[in-house]
């Protein structure tokens, strides 16, 4: 009898372990439309929500969505609170030392300045960016003065209230905002930063990385990824 109980509990344990492998927790920021945001019904929505759900379907995984502040999004991945970062995170060498990236699912996104007037000084002026982004790193190396904010929302607010001369962020994010606000203008300067956007996974999670790479490649191959990029106006499509 005792053996039977042991055997069944071992069975149950291995079954639950197999099941556990199939649930993948997707960590995102939920404050960066059109990439990821919280919609009216309070759920994660946007380009990456649709992309992530499709990838999980193709990889036959069950995915759960979690939001986390941008600031601590990498530490929480590393300590295992979720399994994937899917938050418009560009692939850079610095981040690659801490976590691993899947293949990129967007091209390098052109980065823009948005300001209150067309003659804002972006060379030596005060530029607002979000903390810990490639844009912040880029401005820090230039002659301009960098002011950093925790959320994308605050970077734009800083320009509106005159705290910064311009905000420096992804074209897809800024163009959507400038289109609905007449006082904000998109400057002509464009910079190409980073190696495209990919999903972040733990370095020890090679298996998950390979699974998602296969799914991303299959979406690239059948054109469904390009369709999503066009739908959400994310930037240039893959050839």
């Amino acid at each position, binding site marked *: 009898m005792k053996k039977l109980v042991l055997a069944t509990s071992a069975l149950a344990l291995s079954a639950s372990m197999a099941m*556990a*492998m199939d649930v993948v927790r997707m960590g995102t920021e939920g404050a960066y439309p059109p990439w990821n*945001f919280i919609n009216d019904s*309070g759920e994660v929505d946007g380009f990456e929500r649709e992309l992530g759900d499709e990838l999980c379907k193709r990889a036959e995984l069950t995915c759960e969505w979690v939001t986390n502040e941008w600031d601590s999004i990498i530490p929480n991945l590393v300590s295992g*609170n979720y399994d994937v970062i899917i938050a418009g995170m560009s692939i850079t060498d610095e981040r690659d030392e801490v976590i691993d990236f899947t293949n990129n699912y967007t091209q390098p996104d052109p980065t823009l300045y948005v300001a209150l007037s067309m003659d804002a000084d972006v060379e030596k002026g005060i530029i607002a960016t979000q903390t810990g982004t490639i844009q912040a790193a880029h401005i820090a190396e230039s002659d301009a003065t960098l002011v950093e904010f925790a959320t994308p929302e605050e970077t734009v607010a800083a320009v509106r209230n005159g705290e910064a001369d311009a905000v420096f962020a992804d074209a897809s994010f800024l163009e959507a905002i400038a289109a609905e606000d007449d006082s904000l203008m998109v400057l002509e300067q464009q910079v190409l930063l980073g190696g495209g956007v990919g999903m972040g996974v733990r370095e020890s999670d090679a298996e998950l990385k390979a699974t998602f790479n296969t799914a991303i490649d299959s979406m690239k191959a059948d054109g469904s990824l390009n369709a999503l990029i066009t739908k959400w106006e994310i930037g240039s499509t893959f050839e």
Partner: protein
Amino acid sequence: MFSYCTDPSALEGLTWLSCYLTTGKHAGFYISFGTVLLLLAITAPTALAFGFAGATAARSRIWPVKWFGKTYIAIVRGVPDIAFFLFFVIALDQMFEWARHQIKCPDWDEPIRQGNDFVVCQAAKLPLGEAPQWVHETYGFFLAVLTFAIVFGAFAANVLFGAMRAVPHGQLETAEAYGMSRRQTFWRILVPQMWVYALPGLSNLWMVLIKATPLLFLLGVEDIVYWARELGGTKLSRFTEYPHGDWRMWYFLVLLVFYLCFTKVSELFIERLMVKLTHGQATTGGETQRKAAV
């Protein structure tokens, strides 16, 4: 929610507002008020228990216990709250997972720390990877309560330690003269009398605790400040049915009113409690009450 909300862009004024304020997203905001109140309701007694244990330990005659109590009070009071909140969530979580890992997966041969990664076997994950989202949230909430209790418990311990010493020594000597043991003196004489000395300090702590709840978001719990920031931010018509500008000021105004009302109610309650506790005590307050009653 209402039947006329199907096309919000056609609505105006109060009807628009009634639709806007009843979206699923706003429900999250309203629920978060409950989360904060629940956190306070659980944390306050837990922190008080931690404080009582800490103060008792610090008064102990057994030196390791005394040493433990004093160290707890000194260390936690000396470190900034925010450092503790960031440290405890990760440290407590990893400690629990490490302990479960040792028990559940004894034949795991890979190292737990692989570079930056903290890797335990799937069965040791807390909560389990396949657990539904609400379990993860409850677990985060539990970590938050524990962290708040540890931090505020240290302050409460210091207040109670002081209050225990404020009880007139004559009371304790009299108890001893009546032949009470140390334990009896503690529970029957010291503890009932110390609250009146502890209350001003504890009420301060309660007020600070109420205002410290926004630290919850550091612990991954979506609290009222998170939702106010999220809902108040500029919303573009491409991504929502209810576009609006930067309304964060109004949302924060609501929070301001909430916190002010809440602290006011607390103050009234604490005043009443003070009157009650003073009754029959050998303090000037108790004496005044006795004379007024005559």
